[in-house]
């Protein structure tokens, strides 16, 4: 049960952090017109394909004692996993937010501006108006990080009772030849994903 909980709070924290940066960034990219915007969009799309082990390796170099952030001692802690998974979720959330905002009625933006809303006010308006799409972005980001194993293994170290998540536990049980237990954990992971999605689905239903 501890494993499920560890997985859940690490993935949720990483998603929340990524949302705090990714949603505003996505809105900005969607609404602003600037030179190199196409390149940014292309970059965001490319980053969606970031392999987890590459993120893991990159952050590993950053937070190892020999790395620039080594002082903080984040390697092999839940915080280290959160950092890596946040980077993993960021492009997904930003990208899908761009899509959600772009799909909105252009008259909304014009109305907001006519009514004299500042950039922050306009941004909030489009996020609220496109909340279904933004919620889908968060769900996709959460799904990505709760199901990944590369970052959790490399940055967490699969430490029992501490950084062992459902996916690293599955990897461990598989390597130990305990296939049945591994499969059971896989089903538990699916169940958790179902519960989270169901909760968000209900939340969406309540906000018309």
């Amino acid at each position, binding site marked *: 049960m501890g494993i499920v909980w560890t997985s859940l709070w690490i993935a949720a924290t990483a998603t929340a952090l990524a949302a705090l940066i990714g949603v505003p960034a996505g809105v900005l990219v969607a609404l602003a017109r600037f030179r190199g915007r196409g390149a940014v969009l292309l970059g965001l799309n490319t980053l969606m394909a970031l392999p987890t082990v590459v993120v893991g390796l990159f952050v590993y170099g950053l937070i190892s004692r020999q790395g620039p952030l080594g002082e903080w001692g984040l390697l092999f802690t*839940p915080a280290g996993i959160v950092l890596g998974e946040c980077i993993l979720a960021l492009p997904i959330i930003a990208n899908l937010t761009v899509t959600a905002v772009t799909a909105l009625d252009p008259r909304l933006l014009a109305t907001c501006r006519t009514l004299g809303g500042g950039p922050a006010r306009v941004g*909030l308006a489009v996020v*609220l108006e496109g909340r279904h799409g933004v919620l889908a972005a968060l769900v996709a980001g959460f799904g990505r990080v709760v199901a990944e194993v590369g970052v959790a293994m490399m940055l967490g170290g699969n430490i029992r009772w501490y950084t062992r998540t459902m996916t690293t536990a599955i990897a461990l049980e598989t*390597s130990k*030849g305990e296939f049945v237990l591994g499969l059971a954990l896989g089903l538990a992971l699916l169940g958790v994903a179902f519960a989270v999605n169901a909760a968000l689905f209900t939340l969406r239903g309540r906000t018309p």
Partner: protein
Amino acid sequence: MKHPFPPRAARFAAPLLAITLLLTAISPAGAAERLRMSTTTSTENSGLLGVLLPPFEQANGVKVDVIAVGTGKALKLGENGDVDVVFVHARGAEEKFVADGFGIDRRDVMHNDFVLVGPAADPAGIAKAARAVDALARIQHAGAPFVSRGDDSGTHQKERALWTTARIKPAGQWYLEAGQGMGAVLTIANEKGAYALTDRGTFIAYRDKVGLKVLFAGDPVLFNPYGIIAVNPARHPHVNHALAEKLMDFITGPEGQRIIAGYRPGGEALFFPDALAPDALAPITLVPNGPRPAGVGSTR
């Protein structure tokens, strides 16, 4: 249009914020003192650490974070100062680790031995071999599949030393480099009907899950000693050296050594304690009255 958004904004953003705050609040903060130990997959997969560490943790009110990887990576984590103590099995690499100033106070903990396992039919006939290198030569000669760890672990280092002694450059269809832990390699060898070099401890722990048999054992060159080393606090001042020494005292002391000797899953000892009687040789795992085991790589 003064405040058209706040009520709805709150409805949307409040749950998100609440979740974040809640999660940050309940995340396990560093309540107990933590010690980080990198070790090999064999100590973890065999279940030994599961009985060895809890008494130490309870007696001292601390947590030992175990990072189970191959010996090569375990030592690398020590070099970088990412762990406080390393518990590994590759005498040559361990001595270099200490000589290079990365670790101090290396101590013998225990030993078992390496064995060659394979399908019961033994297509290469290694059971008839006189020496470990002879057994490997038979495998190569027969072109029988052999699964290598391929991960610079202690077992892999031993395997490479044996191939070098046998003057064989293992390559070809029959030589499979898995790049995975001991348990995964035994599983692969089982599926492919292949041979593999394994420490006896892990094999005993996996014996019931795989159909492999011990086909060759007893050559003194297959002696497998484990050592524990504190990461040098002079090089990495942030390491928890005091607690590392405490753990080493425990593992090499009477209580730790008794636990190691008494760990007999399935009625068979996996490891033989070395710390209290360093000259004692395992009477069970090695050839009776055989020659003293040599160090890594020093064969005839």
